């Protein structure tokens, strides 16, 4: 796999900043005055009890929701009404809490779908499957095969994803997100519903993505062990407000976090 397209932002600098973001649906406040930043190359976790606003936060970042107040700056640019496809074109990819794949399509086709944005030839050429379109298809197929190799899913290359166990579907979804060569990868509970072995595999893939491609990763996760092992920094939400932000160790010691979420013993 090639490295994602380079930007001027060096590793360790802020690539995405969330400033005083609030989000409400009618009278319900999902997020209240939340601010944090994501630095290039880091693994950033967003944790919090159920209904704390974690998924809403991700939805704001990739333009699915628009904050009622505050702003989100991505690569130095603030776009108040960014649409999801613009976010995707800008280099933000995501996976979903409940796997959102094309169930009837094979693993290969699902991941190929993630390359759509990178296709330059017109629809017309692709219908013909001829000339430059064919070359392009081959190049993309190669890229997708590298992802398949990377995620060790060669054996299910041609299996319809609807027939796959949940853990593998999650892996395919990660593959589709990677196919976009994202600069920022948003993972919504990548390990929900997995058994121990699947979780360990997924952790390894996340670490490998981060190490090998320098992809910035923001993830929501419930498994505390996973969060503490994987992430560089953690932001904690409760009832739509940020209650803590720091390294896993700092967060673990924070009394408000312990009270709100981690409970006793952690």
């Amino acid at each position, binding site marked *: 796999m090639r490295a994602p397209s380079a930007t001027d932002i060096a590793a360790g600098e802020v690539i995405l900043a969330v400033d005083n973001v609030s989000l409400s649906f009618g009278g319900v406040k999902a997020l209240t005055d939340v601010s944090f930043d994501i630095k290039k190359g880091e693994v950033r976790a967003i944790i919090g009890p159920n209904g704390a606003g974690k998924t809403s936060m991700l939805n704001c970042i990739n333009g699915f929701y628009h904050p009622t107040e505050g702003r989100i700056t991505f690569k130095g640019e603030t776009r108040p009404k960014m649409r999801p496809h613009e976010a995707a074109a800008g280099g933000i990819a995501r996976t979903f809490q409940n796997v959102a794949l094309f169930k009837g399509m094979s693993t290969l086709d699902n991941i190929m779908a993630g390359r759509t944005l990178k296709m330059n030839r017109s629809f017309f050429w692709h219908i013909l499957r001829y000339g430059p379109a064919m070359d392009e298809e081959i190049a993309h*197929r*190669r890229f997708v*095969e*590298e992802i*398949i*190799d*990377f995620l*060790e899913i*060669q*054996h299910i*290359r041609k299996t319809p994803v609807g027939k796959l166990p949940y853990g593998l579907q999650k892996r395919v979804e990660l593959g589709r997100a990677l196919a976009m060569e994202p600069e920022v990868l948003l993972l919504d509970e990548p390990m929900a519903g997995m058994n121990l072995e699947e979780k*360990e595999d997924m952790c390894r893939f996340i*670490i*490998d993505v981060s*190490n*090998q491609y320098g992809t910035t990763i923001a993830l929501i996760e419930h498994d505390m062990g996973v969060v503490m092992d994987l992430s560089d920094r953690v932001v904690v939400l409760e009832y739509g407000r940020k209650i803590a932000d720091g390294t896993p160790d700092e967060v673990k010691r924070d009394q408000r976090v312990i009270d709100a979420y981690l409970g006793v013993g952690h």
Partner: protein
Amino acid sequence: MAHHADARAVTGAHDTFPKLLELNAVRFAARPAMRHKDLGIWRTWTWAEVAREVRDFALGLGELGLKRGDKVAIVGRNRPKLYWSMAAIQSWGGVPVPVYSDSVADEMAYVLEHAEASMAVVEDQEQVDKLLSVSERLPHLAHVIYDEPRGLRDYDHSRMHAFEEVQEIGRKAAGDPAKVKALDEAIALGKGADLAIMLYTSGTTGRPKGVMLSNDNVIVSAKNGGLFDGLTETEETIAYLPLAWVGDNIFSYAQSYVLGFCVNCPESAETVMEDRREIGTSYAFAPPRVYENLLTQTMVRMEDAGPLQKKMFDYFIGVAKEWGEKILNKEPVPLGARLQYAVGEMLVYGPLKNRFGLTNIRVGYTAGEAIGPEIFKFFRSLGINLKQLYGQTEASVYITAQPDGEIYADTVGKPNIDVELKIDDNGEVLYRSPGVFLGYYKDPEKTAETKTADGWVRSGDAGFFDPKTGHLKIIDRAKDVGKLRSGALFAPKYIENKLKFYPNIKEVVAFGQDRDFVTCFLNIDLTAVGSWAERNNVSYGSYQELAGHRDVLKTLTAHVDAVNRSLAEEPLMGGAQIRRFLVLHKELDADDGELTRTQKVRRGFIAERYMPLVEALYDGSKRGRIRTEVTFEDGRKGIIEGDVEIIDMTVHPVTGSAFKEAAE
């Protein structure tokens, strides 16, 4: 008894692998030598290309300081670069030491420490991590070379190199005529009598032993094996068995070099079936387990098939059962049956063989353990020339094999070319052949115990020649054939194999030595029993729960009863019927030391580990309780608790006549 035929162009001048490679690069220059499926595409290397890859790597190894006699560990699955590294190491007179890639770090450390490996060529990060975790035990290990760079970018590279990097170093060295000359001289200096490879046997008892095989051992055996079955350079094989296993070394390396055929490396361990289908292997080798799995999967799928398909399948499998073997053995068969078989071939056998990837199969071997007669006959009836072979690491595999047309489910065949056999007074099989090993590394005592001064090797297996067929029959490990307190013969493996032939039963451990009666532990087969549970709406939360399920126990009781009945028909074995048994709450696992890396049960170890259960089997209790420690693949440990039911069996009166005793 031996007939020496001319093994094609291979002569005494090509008595080492690097020399054979040079020969192949000329005689088979443009023929495929190796394929590897990568990124979804089969990539092919010709013999000329392999020779170049090996040479670059060899020169690179020279730069890293590899010397004659140095041992180099090879750890990983079947990948081209790992096979190439063997020939590259041998070019300098070094000795490759393949290690089981699924060994835990401690086992790996033992082998590398014992072999004093100065370098290691490994597959990926997983293996590098294992080596690093035990690096303080490996003072000799100077360099680690890896194939797959993924995840290794941030590691300390002072003593670690990517495979390509070493080849690059080699290509630079190729600019210096002195260095090229040094390599050529090293290759020329190699002799047939030199140590070629060291293979650590998995060892059902104690620590693994390093079996030293010379070039002559391996090359002559590979050549003779090829002659036995008329193999040529057009064979296609798939390499998927552990590199550390002598079989893989012979079939995927030595024989390929001697005969010039192409070895195909699968994309991953999970894709072997699919890859085999794409390649269409003509020469195959697998332990019985692989064939068992194929059959179980087929049967499980047929259970889910539509009624028409099921009827068709059952009908034609019936036809195949009756006539298939006879047709394969070229016996006279009536025309009507031939026609029926031909229709079956079109509708059932052909598609099935295609699924198995065995459409083009000419010779298929099963070895390592006894295969269930049902399984064996099933494959043969489809027209697959599956045969049995008896081999050992110490013999460079070949001891006996079944010649085409002389196939019996319960024998292991006739001596291979140049192999002499005799049966000792205690029933132990002894052999002598050109493949007989040099000795155990750093263990002259064990060597002397196993190998006599005039070259006979004690196989450790008890067997006899079947007077009807002249074939060898193996009963059990010689030291395992014991007696009950009553004096009745107790051959645990014989009983275990009878039980294991039921698809529901994965593993069996029988006890009885110096006891009043025979008892056993069973392990259910999760695939078969799980599928049964699904079909019958039996819900279960865990392996443990399924293993203890009432209906499962009932089925297993029926199996044990059937085995007892069949034992009762054999006067020799009738006294060893199973009186009590239990179903274990966990799967026996190599990581816990309960199986060897080649998946054989370690009876003694299990008896000790499950002492409370063994006692419960003999003290008349209705249930047995135990706590056992389990090791996960990453080395962490956990505790599994079990409370299992013990089932009493009725013993059948011994009925068989005494004719079998005459056969002994």
